[in-house]
C-alpha cells in the first residue's frame, strides 16, 4: 500500500533529512517528493510505498506525527486511498 506524507511548518535546515531518515529507518520507500517554500513556510508532499515497512501502519503514523511535533512541524500520514476516493472518479 502507499501513503501520502505531508509536512508543513516554518522552513529550517534538515527537514527533508529528518523525515526521510525516519522513513528509511523503518523500511519505507519514498517514490515521489514535491516540495516548495513560500516566504518562510515549508510544504512537502511525499508519496511513500509501505510494503517493506517494519512497523505497523498506525504506529508509523503516530511516530511520524511525533517526529514532526518535536521539530515544530505538522506531519500527516494518510492512506493514499483517501485522496484517490476524493479526487478521482
Amino acid at each position: 500500500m502507499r501513503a501520502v506524507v505531508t509536512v508543513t511548518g516554518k522552513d529550517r535546515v534538515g527537514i527533508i533529512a529528518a523525515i526521510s531518515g525516519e522513513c528509511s529507518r523503518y523500511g519505507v520507500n519514498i517514490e515521489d517528493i514535491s516540495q516548495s517554500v513560500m516566504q518562510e513556510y515549508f510544504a512537502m508532499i511525499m508519496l511513500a510505498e509501505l510494503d517493506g515497512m517494519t512497523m505497523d501502519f498506525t504506529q508509523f503514523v503516530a511516530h511520524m506525527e511525533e517526529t514532526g511535533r518535536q521539530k515544530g512541524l505538522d506531519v500527516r500520514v494518510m492512506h493514499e486511498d483517501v485522496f484517490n476516493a476524493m479526487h478521482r472518479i
Partner: protein
Amino acid sequence: MINTADILETIQMIREEALDIRTVTMGISLFDCACDDVGRLEQKLYEKITRTAERLVPVCEQLEQTYGIPIVNKRVSVTPLSLVGAALSAEGFVRLAKAMDRAARTLGIHFIGGFSAYAQKGVSRGAAALMAAIPQALAETERVCSSVNVASTQAGINMDAVREMGRILKETAYLTRAADSIGCAKLVVFANIPQDNPFMAGALHGPGEPETVINVGVSGPGVVAAAVRRQGPCDFGTLAEAVKKTAFKITRVGQLVAQEASRQLGVSFGIIDLSLAPTPAQGDSVARILENMGLERCGTHGTTAALALLNDAVKKGGVMASSSVGGLSGAFIPLSEDAGMIEAATCGTLTLDKLEAMTAVCSVGLDMIAVAGDTPAATLSAIIADEMAIGVVNGKTTAVRLIPVYGRGVGETVHFGGLLGHAPIIPLHGESSEAFIARGGRIPAPIHSLKN
C-alpha cells in the same frame, strides 16, 4: 502522483474546515431475541448486541488512523423494541432500556437507538407499553435513544399518538429535570421514519433490513461553508455547482470508510446518509453556509430558499459519489447544535415559525429546540402535529425533538453538553391549541393526485 493542490485541499478540509465522518452506525436485528419472558429477553438482547458489535469501536479507531479522518460517533441501532418485546409491560420495557444502556457501555459506543415504536395508524399493545415506558427509560439510562413514528404519507397522522407524545415529553422533561430535561434530547417524534437512518436520536434498524448492516453518516458543513465563501458573489447556478462538487468529495470519503468498515467487520454495507450535520464547534455550522450565500443572519427572509438550494445540491453531489444512499439525507438544522443557529435564535431573527418553514425543504425537522418548561402538553402536541403535516403532505421525513426545560423560561439558556450543545429557550405562541388536540382520532392520509 496525485495532484498537489488536491492533496492540500483534502488536508485543509480536515484540519481547518472540520471534515469528519459523523457516525458509523451498526444496525442489528433483534427479532431472534423475541420472547415473552423479560429476564430472558434482557439477557439475549445484551448478549446479541455486545457480541455482534464487539469490534465496531476498535475497527473505527483503526480506520481513523489509517485514513486520517476523524470518526466522531460510533453507534448501534436495533430493531424497534416494541416489535421485539410486544408481549412486555411498561416495566419490562424499562428493564430492556437498561439492558441496552449496559450493552452500549460495554461496547464503548456513544448512543444506541431503537427504543422505538410505530404508531402512525394505531397503537398496538406493545407500542402502547413502550410509549408508556419512555419517560422512565430515558430518565434511568444515559445512552439509549427513543423514537416514535406517529404519522406517514400512507396512513395520515395518528392524533391520539400525537396527543400522547405531548404528555410523554412533559413527563420525560420532569423526570430528567435535574439535568435540564435532557431526556427529551434523546426522544424524537417522526413522520415517515426512515428504516436505515444512522443518525441519533432517531436511528433504528427497520424490519426489512438485513441481519446486520453498516450505515454511515457523513458531514462537513464547514467544508461547504468554505466552498460557498470562496465562490464570492457568483450566480445561483454556479453556487449550486460548487456545493455539488464539495458534497461529492465529502461523500466519497464516507463511501470509502463505509466500505472498509463493512469489509473489516464482515457486515454488509447499507447506506451512506448524505446529511450536513452541524456541531456546536465554530466553523461547523449550517447557518453559516446560508449566511455565506448572502443573508445577514440565518432566519431572515431568503433563508428557506437558500436552504432549499443547499439541500438539493448536497443530494445531487452525494448521490453520484455513493453506491447506496438512504437515511435522512439532507441538511440538518438542530438549533442547539449549530453555533450560527444559536446566535440567530438568541437575537430573535430565527423563530420557531421560520424553523418550521425551513423544515419543509430540508432534512429532519424541528430539532433540538428548547422551549419553556410550563408549555402546555397540548401546545407541544400541536407543534408536533404541524410538523407531521409537513412530512405527510410532502411525502418526506419530518421529526420533532423538543425540550420543554422544566423550571426554565423564555430567554434563559440551557447547556446540554458535548455534541448536543446549548440553546436559548425560544418563545412560542401563547394561544391555546387545547380543543384542537383534544379531538383525537386520525387526520386522514393526503390524496396523491391533484397536486398543488
